[in-house]
């Protein structure tokens, strides 16, 4: 089932009505779980069975870890390591061995499952968490395909205190129109980003990356810019829609993006791009590896290792490893110079605008191995770009248009909001708010590119 389909809209209407009318929390939870499994069953019965089994395994493991914690000489740590390893092995089996098709969204829900176990071990969540809560946390349909990746300690309390669409300060009733309006707007914005921008950009990016040898160096450079935009808008679209749907159902999912192409340096980029994954990696990989507590060299190594994990989480090919490693090295170099500057041993300070442009260029170039079919194609693309090889000249008009649009938003962010997302919730009680929303919805259909509906990140 696709977010932008009639069955999904019907499902949403039914759920919103149900959540608004039914006060019994268990019933609401059951409805969410049923809806999530119904949504997910569209990707195959086997995938659904694996999801349910993994969820139940996670729940039971959590209970055992909690029980062991209560004992004086418990083996909770060993249990945690064993269960997390087992989960990782399942993920690796599907992702790397290619014997069976990996269930959609597995990379995302497995991270959530691991977060549940670690949070249980750390005592960050209630050890008596109910089975229904765990099932819902792992399978919650708005984010199961591509995140945002929620941590157990952030999501489980929301299930417990769930108020649906009612105002928080008014538990007796009263629809929270602000939440409703915000949810609808985020969903509409996501639909626009996906249908109009990302899918349209994919037209040119896919064709160029399919046959890079045919295109001129400049065209490849331009297509790489196109991919930089496409990936952002595609993933931001999904995240916006997921957060919007979450809002409509009474949940606050993590906001995943904050104008990442305005980042000042590689570390700043990861604070703005796929925020939920970066935050997950920081908490469950970087910090357990020792973070920055074990000396400078170890910090750099930890940064690189964390980014390699990130790369390998994205995909099984060598390209993702290279992409992750290069990002890790870039972050380590950035940290190295940052520390030198702190110690007063390095004085060069680039103007912010130059730093932002350099970071953008670095990130854009690193998307090339991320997108290319294999390492051979990656090298072909880089060599054609840097030698300005002749070939088909193809400069896609929409890349210009959407680059200009993003530039405009980023300029607004710099001027009005210190480089943070400048887009605000429209006041739907005012005429202009209604007009802008109506224009956005009509434009989404009018300029939609139909033919490439899959979200990029759902394949990871």
């Amino acid at each position, binding site marked *: 089932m696709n977010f932008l389909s009639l069955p999904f809209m019907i499902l949403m209407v039914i759920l919103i009505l149900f959540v608004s009318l039914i006060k019994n929390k268990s019933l609401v939870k059951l409805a969410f779980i049923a809806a999530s499994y119904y949504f997910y069953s569209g990707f195959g019965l086997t995938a659904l069975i694996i999801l349910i089994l993994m969820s139940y395994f996670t729940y039971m493991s959590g209970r055992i870890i909690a029980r062991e914690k209560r004992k004086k000489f418990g083996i909770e740590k060993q249990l945690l390591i064993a269960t997390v390893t087992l989960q990782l092995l399942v993920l690796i089996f599907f992702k790397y061995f290619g014997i069976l098709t990996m269930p959609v969204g597995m990379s995302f829900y497995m991270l959530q499952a691991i977060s549940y176990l670690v949070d249980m071990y750390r005592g960050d969540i209630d050890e008596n968490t109910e089975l229904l809560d765990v099932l819902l946390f792992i399978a919650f349909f708005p984010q199961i395909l591509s995140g945002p990746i929620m941590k157990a300690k952030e999501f489980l309390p929301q299930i417990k205190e769930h108020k649906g669409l009612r105002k928080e300060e008014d538990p007796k009733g009263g629809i929270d129109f602000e939440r409703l309006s915000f949810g609808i707007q985020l969903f509409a914005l996501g639909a626009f980003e996906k249908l109009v921008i990302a899918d349209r950009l994919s*037209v*040119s990016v*896919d*064709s160029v990356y*399919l*046959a*890079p*040898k*045919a295109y*001129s160096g400049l065209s490849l450079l331009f297509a790489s810019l196109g991919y930089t935009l496409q990936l952002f808008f595609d993933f931001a679209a999904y995240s916006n829609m997921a957060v919007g749907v979450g809002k409509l159902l009474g949940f606050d999912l993590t906001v995943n993006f904050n104008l990442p192409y305005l980042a000042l340096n590689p570390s700043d980029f990861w604070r703005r791009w796929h925020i939920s994954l970066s935050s997950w990696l920081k908490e469950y990989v970087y910090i357990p590896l020792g973070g920055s507590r074990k000396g400078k060299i170890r910090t750099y190594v930890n940064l690189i290792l964390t980014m390699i994990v990130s790369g390998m989480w994205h995909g099984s090919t060598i390209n993702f490893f290279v992409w992750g490693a290069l990002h890790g090295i870039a972050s380590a170099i950035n940290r190295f110079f940052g520390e030198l500057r702190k110690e007063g041993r390095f004085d060069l300070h680039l103007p912010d605008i130059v730093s932002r442009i350099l970071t953008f260029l670095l990130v854009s170039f690193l998307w090339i191995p991320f997108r290319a079919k294999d390492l051979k194609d990656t090298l072909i693309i880089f060599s054609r770009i840097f030698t300005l090889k*002749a*070939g*088909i*000249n*193809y*400069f*896609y*008009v*929409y890349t210009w248009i959407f680059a200009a649009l993003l530039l405009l938003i980023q300029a607004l962010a710099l001027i009005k909001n210190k480089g943070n997302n400048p887009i605000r919730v429209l006041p739907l*009680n005012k*005429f202009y708010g*209604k*007009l802008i*929303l*109506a*224009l956005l919805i*009509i*434009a989404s*259909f*009018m300029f*939609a590119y*139909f*033919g490439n509906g899959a979200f990029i990140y759902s394949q990871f």
Partner: protein
Amino acid sequence: MKILIKQMLQWMAAITAALFIMNLFCFIYYSPFLELKREHGANTGFLLPGMRGVYGMEGYCMAGSDKRGYVNRDLPLEKDYYLVAGASHSEGLFLPVEDRFSDVLNEKLKEGEGLKVYNIARSGNFFSVVTQHFDGILGEFPDAKGIIIETDSLSYDTKAWRDSMIQVGYDEGESIEAIMSGMSSMDKLKLNIKRCLPLVRELHKQFLTMQSSSGELRESDVYKGDFDEEYKRALNELLAFLRSRTDKELIIVFHPAVSIEESGDMKLLSTGAEELFGEACRANDIEFIDMSERFLEAYEEEHIVPMGFSNTTMASGHTNKAAHRMMAEEIYKVIRSEKESDQP
């Protein structure tokens, strides 16, 4: 209650205003010609005369229809004129009008030779439709010196070649004047409303695109049978039939679709019927222009791809400016040589 009514009214006003704004935008993005369908004539339908069509989804074209209901710059039909018949490639509603091969040809032919080219192409009028309307063309344009038929496909089976001989003919009662004068006030009002609301047609087109998963509709599937004696006979029957209807110059221009391969080469998506088709044309005194080699040369020497635009993908969709220019040059060569051979 008062607030609710006010909000409802505001929503209605906002939606109306948004639709109005988008409708205005359509006049520079997508405002297609209105078509007046007919059965008996040179093609399957006239364009509403004097209308401006705007097409921005693939390439960009802003063109006007002439008073005869064709997509021309209202050229007078001089004595020695050629007709261009074909489908969307010839109609060229994705290029500036002056870049279409018929118009490039016109420019070339202006240079002292007194010839003109008149474009009667219409989207969906593939080769078999053009041949079925062949008598219609002759009836509607009896003075034409020659007929140029453009096609991107020669992929037909024997039945299709034979069916292409079934003629729809020409009916004076379906001339543009007759159709326009036979229209009721209500019909005219409906047309004018449609003309003013391109957004409705844009949204309708989007809806159809959303529903269809198969992409562009083609007249026939690619022919997968043998090119045996029966096939040759059917092909020859059709071309002999066309030749028998008139002694005007007949030129068939074939331009294959192409694809870009992973290796970086450009591949012609030909079916293998081109050679047979060329032989049959020669046997029936019909000029056959096959653009295959010219397209390949242009790609190998200058990386020029004959299809695709800067707002779509390369090597897909319709023929672009470069292809139209190449086609015009090849047709021009043929016309010139015929002109020279006509001279005493």
